[in-house]
């Protein structure tokens, strides 16, 4: 099998597995929608995308969305994890209290703004960009109806799941919603080892995954490494419940973020593990290490590093 053949097989495998093989619920219905028209960031069978938090100079607002789309294309990305702040209108402003702005946002979400979501999806579709996941930090201020509305909106965007940095308690509460929409709920780790509610290591991931078969892990290699976790061992054991990896580098022992290859995260090994096992795990590039370069240039360096790792 040539590398090209492998790529073809892998894209079919990735597409099918994301929808079908991963979930015990309605997520299977998503399978057809996953096949990409223009999958420009499939490399050696590994599906890459970007966490656009990386564009640090760009405020994550609806006003900057067109710039975001342009940059993603410039960086050769075909897939993105889209933060809600790129999508939802902002109600905060002079003379509006935080509470009033929060209520307006809730009302907007519950108002079923179908056309708005479709318009956003169209912007990404036209640029050949797939919205893989919708990133939103749900907290105790969300009503059940609001959580349901968030999943419904994310589905209109074409997202296969909603993901956030919520802790275990909120994850438990959210876990019953994604199945209603044929989606998954992603849980993302940080490295706070002093908070019993935090998702920060294998044990806390396992607890979160136990709340529902629709819960998936997004393994953040930076934070997992900083918390002295073993990314390779985690993927070997739990790959069938991992939807994506936030790929970045950090040093152990709550160390700092570093450019790719300068930290302790086993980035090359993670990429090859995903490729060689044909796991349908999406790799979302993310960086928080400092750079003097423009973010587009830094993202390109990271992406090129990954391509070399898979060559």
């Amino acid at each position, binding site marked *: 099998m040539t590398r090209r053949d492998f790529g073809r097989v892998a894209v079919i495998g990735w597409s099918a597995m994301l929808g079908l093989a991963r979930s015990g619920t309605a997520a299977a219905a998503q399978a057809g929608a996953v096949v990409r028209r223009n999958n420009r960031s499939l490399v050696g069978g590994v599906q890459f995308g970007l966490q656009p938090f990386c564009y640090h100079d760009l405020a994550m607002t609806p006003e900057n969305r067109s710039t975001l789309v342009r940059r993603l294309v410039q960086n050769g990305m075909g897939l993105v994890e889209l933060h809600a702040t790129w999508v939802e209108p902002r109600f905060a402003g002079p003379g509006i209290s935080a509470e009033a702005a929060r209520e307006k946002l809730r009302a907007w979400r519950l108002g079923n703004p179908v056309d708005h979501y479709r318009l956003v999806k169209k912007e990404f579709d036209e640029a050949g960009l797939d919205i893989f996941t919708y990133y939103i930090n749900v907290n105790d201020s969300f009503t059940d109806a609001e959580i349901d509305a968030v999943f419904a909106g994310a589905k209109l965007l074409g997202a296969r799941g909603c993901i956030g940095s919520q802790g275990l308690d909120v994850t438990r509460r959210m876990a019953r919603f994604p199945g209603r929409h044929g989606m998954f709920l992603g849980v993302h780790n940080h490295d706070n080892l002093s908070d019993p509610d935090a998702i920060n290591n294998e044990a806390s991931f396992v607890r979160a995954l136990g709340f529902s078969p629709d819960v998936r892990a997004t393994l953040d290699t930076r934070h997992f490494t900083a918390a002295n976790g073993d990314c390779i061992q985690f993927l070997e054991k739990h790959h069938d419940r991992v939807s994506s990896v936030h790929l970045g580098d950090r040093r152990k022992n709550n160390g700092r*973020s570093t450019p790719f290859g300068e930290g302790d995260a086993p980035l090359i090994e993670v990429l090859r593990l995903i490729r060689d096992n044909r796991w349908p795990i999406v790799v979302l590039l993310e960086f928080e290490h400092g750079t*003097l370069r423009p973010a587009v240039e830094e993202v390109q360096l990271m992406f090129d590093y990954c391509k070399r790792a898979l060559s």
Partner: protein
Amino acid sequence: MSRPLFVSGGLIVLLSVSVAGQSPASTTTPARASYDIDFIGPPLADPVMQHAKETYVLFGCAYCHGVTLTPRGEATDLRRSALVGADIDGDRIVALLRAGIPQTAKLSPMPQFSDLSDRQLHDIANYIHYARQESRYTQIVDATRATGDAAAGRAYFDQQCASCHADGPSGIARSYDAPTLRDRLLRPPALSGVRSFDVTTRLDAKRATARERHNHLLENFTPAQVANLVAYLSAR
């Protein structure tokens, strides 16, 4: 643009250089091809402080605490941090950078930077102080509109200023109007601007102490304290 710009940990790139055998025009380096001016901002007048700023950015501080110390997300606001306000020459900031803050209620703990050199850690601390002074100056100038309390100003002067200004306020106030007096309190012209490397100036301990002391005051003044001082000194 002929100002030196530091990239990649201190390597000087001259943006406009003249190479033997070539005309200056033909060797002008494309300015900041790899310098994110939109995020980092234009280079500072003081190249030493520009290097410190780039160190602050290079090690990722700016993504959480902001290039101009306007924090993002859950990060501490260094413009208002008591620890930064109490820090003298990095004595507190550097120790914190080395250890990080692993125990926290926040989502992400402050990382530790123990692998950085002393010089790098002090550069980060120096830039934090610089940026805080810039921020406080703007904040105080914007806020110091109302007339202050001269009695409170005198009490403050006696407590914080008199140890150096032993001749009292008469040696300071002269005939400045209130805004000029306020600006000279915040940034005494003789102590501000790009630091000189002239040996005589560098060895002037009194000047160095005065500069450090005024910068420390600037970082910790409240607008009311400045208004009170101006009221007291203007009344002399």
